[in-house]
């Protein structure tokens, strides 16, 4: 009987590894088996390499790694039923959680967040991945596997996008729109062209693609729908009305200042400067918010009003550049400026009837740009109105004297 040498064992191990058998257990078995065959069946005087070549060929049809693949298939098959059961349970649970979460959110009931969160996480991170694994095993054709994986991956990312959007987490739009665009521009064309070529799937390809394109079109339409145009118009008119009031008051006040120009009164000057200071800050904040929201320069933003906003419900811009943002144009800085204004107002002689700006009663954070812009104009009207009453009062006193 031929005795295989250590070098020959090394050669067999290397060759089997090169042929794609990497799992140690499978490799050990094959190596020992090949050695046994060679030792028992090699004829006297036969070349080892030739004998090895003939022997290894008995192990496969096309390539040796088939053994490893088949082992893996058999092993995963064991979990097949467990996976199917999990698939059913998580599918039902996630569907129920998502529907209930949506209902709770509509009704503003407590628990909506946790329902939606668990539903969407179960759906995107358990249900859909399990689907990928099971379908991958079911369908051996490479083309179908690729289509299926692209489809399910866009579903996972899209669902996470919805979750991020609902939870108001950052990157929601990138996830959601990214997966939507991939679905529309990559998945649908690949799906259509691969299925259309095959006469057996041609008809279904047309029907399914039509459904998907129509569905995407309708979703696109929904994306562009914010608040109805009527509501936007009425909010814009409310703003321009109030803006006009502020302008009128400012002009009135200018006239009053001119009439009293000969009166060098410390209080009047002080009021004029604190009003102008706060007014300037408000203007700068408004321009900054419009510029960030519309994505235009500050010079352009200075010529725009809330009627020109691209997204009247932009809450991100408030969160990012007003609530969270630091610096001169942040809410904190604005709050300080208002406090300073109120303190200065209180010490102006004869200004007891003047109204301090009560920021505590005004919610300026966790809201949308339209609301903040309107609140800022309201404050401008209030400080101009304070200025106006004081000047009118002083003018009346002058006349009486």
């Amino acid at each position: 009987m031929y005795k295989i040498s250590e070098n020959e064992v090394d050669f067999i191990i290397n060759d089997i590894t090169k042929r794609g058998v990497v799992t140690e257990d499978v490799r050990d078995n094959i190596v020992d088996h090949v050695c046994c065959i060679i030792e028992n069946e090699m004829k006297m005087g036969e070349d080892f390499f030739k004998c090895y070549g003939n022997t290894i060929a008995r192990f496969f049809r096309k390539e040796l790694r088939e053994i490893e693949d088949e082992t893996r298939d058999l092993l995963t098959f064991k979990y097949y039923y467990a996976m199917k059961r999990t698939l059913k349970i998580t599918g039902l649970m996630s569907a129920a959680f998502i529907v209930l979460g949506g209902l709770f959110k509509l009704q503003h009931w407590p628990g909506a967040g946790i329902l939606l969160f668990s539903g969407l996480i179960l759906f995107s991170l358990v249900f859909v991945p399990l689907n990928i694994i099971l379908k991958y095993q079911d369908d051996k054709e490479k083309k179908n596997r690729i289509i299926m994986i692209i489809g399910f991956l866009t579903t996972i990312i899209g669902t996470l996008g919805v979750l991020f959007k609902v939870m108001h987490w950052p990157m929601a739009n990138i996830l959601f729109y990214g997966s939507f665009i991939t679905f529309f521009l990559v998945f649908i064309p690949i799906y259509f062209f691969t299925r259309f070529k095959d006469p057996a799937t041609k008809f279904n390809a047309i029907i399914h693609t039509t459904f998907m394109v129509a569905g995407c079109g309708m979703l696109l339409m929904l994306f562009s729908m914010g608040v109805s145009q009527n509501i936007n118009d009425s909010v814009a008119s409310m703003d321009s009305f109030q803006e006009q009031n502020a302008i009128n008051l400012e002009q009135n006040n200018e006239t009053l200042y001119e009439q009293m120009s000969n009166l060098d009164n410390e209080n009047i000057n002080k009021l004029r400067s604190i009003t102008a200071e706060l007014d300037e800050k408000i203007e700068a904040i408004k321009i900054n918010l419009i510029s960030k929201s519309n994505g235009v320069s500050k010079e352009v933003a200075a010529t725009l009003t809330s009627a020109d906003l691209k997204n009247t419900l932009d809450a991100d811009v408030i969160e990012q550049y007003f609530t969270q943002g630091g610096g001169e144009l942040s809410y904190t800085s604005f709050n300080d400026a208002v406090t300073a204004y109120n303190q200065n107002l209180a010490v102006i002689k004869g200004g007891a009837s003047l109204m301090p700006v009560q920021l505590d009663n005004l919610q300026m954070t966790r809201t949308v740009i339209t609301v903040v812009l309107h609140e800022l104009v309201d404050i401008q009207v209030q400080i101009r109105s304070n200025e106006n009453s004081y000047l009118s009062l002083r003018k009346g006193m002058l006349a009486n004297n």
Partner: protein
Amino acid sequence: MYICVMYSSELIKGTLKTIVLNLLKDNDKMYGYEITQKVKELTDSKIQITEGALYPTLHALEKQGDVTVEKVYIGKRVRKYYILTDQGVTTVADRVNELSDFMKTMRFLLDLDSSVQNV
């Protein structure tokens, strides 16, 4: 990649586990090459288990807990001996009963007994 030269692979595909488990029941421990040789010998070469079918099956049986493995190092080679577990003893009894019952049914279904009698 399946089992034999004499019978169609479809016919024997479902019986490989039973064959392997039953062999292990009668022998304390066996390694892969030994199993193929034993089957060949017992069936007069009518059934020859190919390596491509044997090892995936052995791994599956190991995962299921029907067999355990004992490794023996022969130089750089590792020989894996397969041993039937207690669970495997029950499984082999179930599988043999099932197969025997199936064979009876097939015999009846294909009317083999009467054709034998008619000869």
